[in-house]
């Protein structure tokens, strides 16, 4: 065992590090004040162009599509090095991570020609329009419909949980084109112009108070058939390309989320009726349990990197990541707030460590749902990793328009 880079990886890392030292020099310090996503667009574009010129975009993409044709390990190494700076990278993450790979896997040559390079260069921002109010865990239950009209399709419906919809130029959207087919079979995917008439993005406020997502309403939005991705009725299969990429992206602990160190620091400051909190057995056990989850997931990711670094596929153990991270966050935060008595409840005042934990208590309730609920992820582990049978699916072969409404 060896935690060091292979010689090849080390060389790539050294090169990237050297390049970033100059190119990302302006991003060495965090921004002086929080910057909204909207404000960040020009800066994000600028940084994407700089990286593109230097060959640090589309690292794993085929060269034919403007990529670098390198391995996932190279991409991870670059991201590790880039993350030491405060460069704005979020705006393009979904477009380049999920949407454009779907475009170049399933799109016509004309679509690839038109869209891929512009996205890679940071000219155009993309979003992913999949979830709907009645199609969450059961994504194939979507109702947004697209009806053929001459050379066009007309889209009506509503999408939800769409990141960056209000900042996007284009989106990939899954629609129902044949309501008389079984639910997985009547779907078709398109590229939609987010500036087209009839598209309206509204911010969606979360329980925690933030608005990281949008609802997007489609009313008579026309899309040319030339903007179809994959065959009519193949939308489910096409969307799996996108989701496979999402599952890789979602999972690790959110960068800003508190962990066992925060609990240790908090417990070290608290004096209970029975002495310092950090000395209490239940507190120490909670720290240990949290460490085991936090560090266990980090180490599990190292196992994946190790496989990638050897040119192998990561093992199925990656699938445990999000379900562990989300519930651990919620449990640790609840424990910390309990331990903090009154100060764990008031949000005014001066303990940033505690406010981070309060934020985590609110956010973790969402993290247990986003990108696959605890229950769906357990199903996936049991079925795909352990080979247990799937749930009963009475609606699998029923025409969608005969399935009783929710």
């Amino acid at each position, binding site marked *: 065992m060896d935690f060091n880079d292979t010689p090849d990886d080390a060389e790539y890392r050294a090169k990237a590090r050297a390049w970033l030292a100059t190119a990302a020099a302006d991003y060495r310090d965090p921004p002086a004040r929080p910057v909204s996503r909207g404000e960040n667009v020009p800066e994000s574009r600028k940084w994407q162009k700089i990286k593109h010129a230097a060959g640090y975009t589309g690292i794993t993409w085929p060269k034919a599509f403007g990529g670098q044709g390198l391995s996932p390990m190279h991409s991870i190494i670059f991201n590790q090095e880039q993350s030491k700076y405060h460069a704005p990278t979020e705006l393009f993450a979904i477009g380049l991570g999920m949407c454009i790979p779907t475009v170049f896997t399933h799109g016509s040559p004309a679509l690839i020609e038109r869209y891929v390079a512009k996205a890679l260069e940071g000219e155009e921002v993309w979003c992913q329009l999949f979830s709907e109010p009645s199609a969450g865990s059961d994504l194939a*239950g979507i109702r947004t419909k697209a009806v053929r009209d001459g050379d066009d399709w007309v889209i009506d419906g509503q999408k939800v949980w769409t990141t960056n919809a209000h900042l996007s130029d284009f989106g990939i959207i899954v629609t129902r084109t044949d309501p008389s087919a079984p639910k997985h079979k009547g779907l078709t995917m398109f590229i939609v112009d987010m500036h087209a008439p009839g598209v309206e993005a509204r911010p969606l406020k*979360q329980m925690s108070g933030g608005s990281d997502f949008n609802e997007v309403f489609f009313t008579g939005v026309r899309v040319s058939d030339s903007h179809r991705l994959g065959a009519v009725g193949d939308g489910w299969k096409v969307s799996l390309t996108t989701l496979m990429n999402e599952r890789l992206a979602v999972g690790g602990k959110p960068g800003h989320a508190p962990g066992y160190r925060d609990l240790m620091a908090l417990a070290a400051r*608290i004096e209970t009726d029975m002495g310092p909190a950090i000395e209490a057995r239940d507190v120490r056990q909670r720290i240990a349990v949290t460490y085991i989850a936090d560090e266990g997931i980090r180490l599990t990711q190292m196992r994946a990197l190790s496989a990638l670094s050897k040119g192998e596929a990561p093992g199925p153990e990656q699938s445990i990541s999000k379900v562990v991270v989300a519930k651990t966050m919620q449990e640790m935060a*609840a424990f910390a707030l*309990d*331990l903090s008595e*009154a100060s764990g*409840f008031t949000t005014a005042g001066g303990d940033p460590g505690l406010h981070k934990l309060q934020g985590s208590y609110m956010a973790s309730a969402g993290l247990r*749902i986003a990108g696959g609920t605890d229950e769906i992820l357990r199903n996936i582990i049991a079925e795909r990793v352990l080979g247990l049978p799937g749930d009963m699916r*009475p609606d699998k072969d029923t025409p969608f328009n005969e399935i009783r409404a929710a």
Partner: protein
Amino acid sequence: MDFDFSDDAKALREQARKFFDERAGPAVARASMNGTASFDAALWQAVVDLGWTAARVPEAHGGVGMSSEAACVLAEEAGRSLAPIPLAQALAATEALIALGTPEQQARWLPGIADGSVVAVTGWAEGGTASPAKASAKVDGGAINGTKSPIADLAAATMAIVSAAGPDGPALYIVDLKGEGVGVAPVDTLDLVRRHGTLTLSGAAADPLGTTAGYHDWLDRAAILGSFEAMGTATAAMDMAVAYAKERTAFGQKIGRYQGIKHKCADMYIKLELARAHALHAAWAMEAGAAELRQAASAARVASLDALAFAAEENVQIHGGIGFTWESDCQFYYRRNRALVAALGSRNFWADRLVRSLEQRNAAAA
């Protein structure tokens, strides 16, 4: 044997449930959250008019003179409905005055609580990480100095019963909030519906209400009322989750058909019924003045906090994405969970208190 509420208390519970079903609930909580008022004054006036603040007050002081069971059922229904009114506070303050007040103190304050002219709150916390076993506020020559925070419903209150360091440990003191040396300011908390405040006392007049033993006795009684409130809130969260599980379809089935969801709902019910058994026991101990009061109150508090935390957290989970939106009512229970923990000291404080009372019982039996 009759291990259940009296018919009077049950009738009051039915009346309260019917009233709050019509006049309170998540929509009213949301309106209160979105507004600027510190509570729903019209709703409060209606509750006063129904005589609920008078329920426990002895007839001699203008009240109805019901047993403490009345306070329990009112607390539960207020908790269920999320009613944005200072009822839980009024009940806790009333209990303190009845149990610990001198005839003069009772005569001064109880008639006002009964007729609504006095809005009473209670407060032990001092903003830090100390448990209810501690108080730093100091009383010297009848004048109190210190900061009590957060206090629920403080903004509208006219009197407060607060803890301060007495000669043998924390004890309760009555402060007239219209007097000198009293500062009241809002304080933000995780609960956006029930508004809290910080009470700054700079030499305000403090009228002692019982001893340290009395303070601890009151803590037990307040914990019992708090348990009923928490059970009411937990029941509402469970009902919301169960209703959604019956209505929402995924993968061609109502989600309530999946054991992943179904067993979660069963666990909510299990925790709630354990809490209910202890709360009923505690209600009996309170009314009977039984030796088991501390033990029963502590168990009821721990069990009800467990039931509420689980129901509030898993209600969001069962709702999925929609449950995490601002527009969903799930947040009210999730946030209120934190408020009810903070209201009287955390699970750990009460678990320890429970074991201590069991140890004392064992020692006495030995």
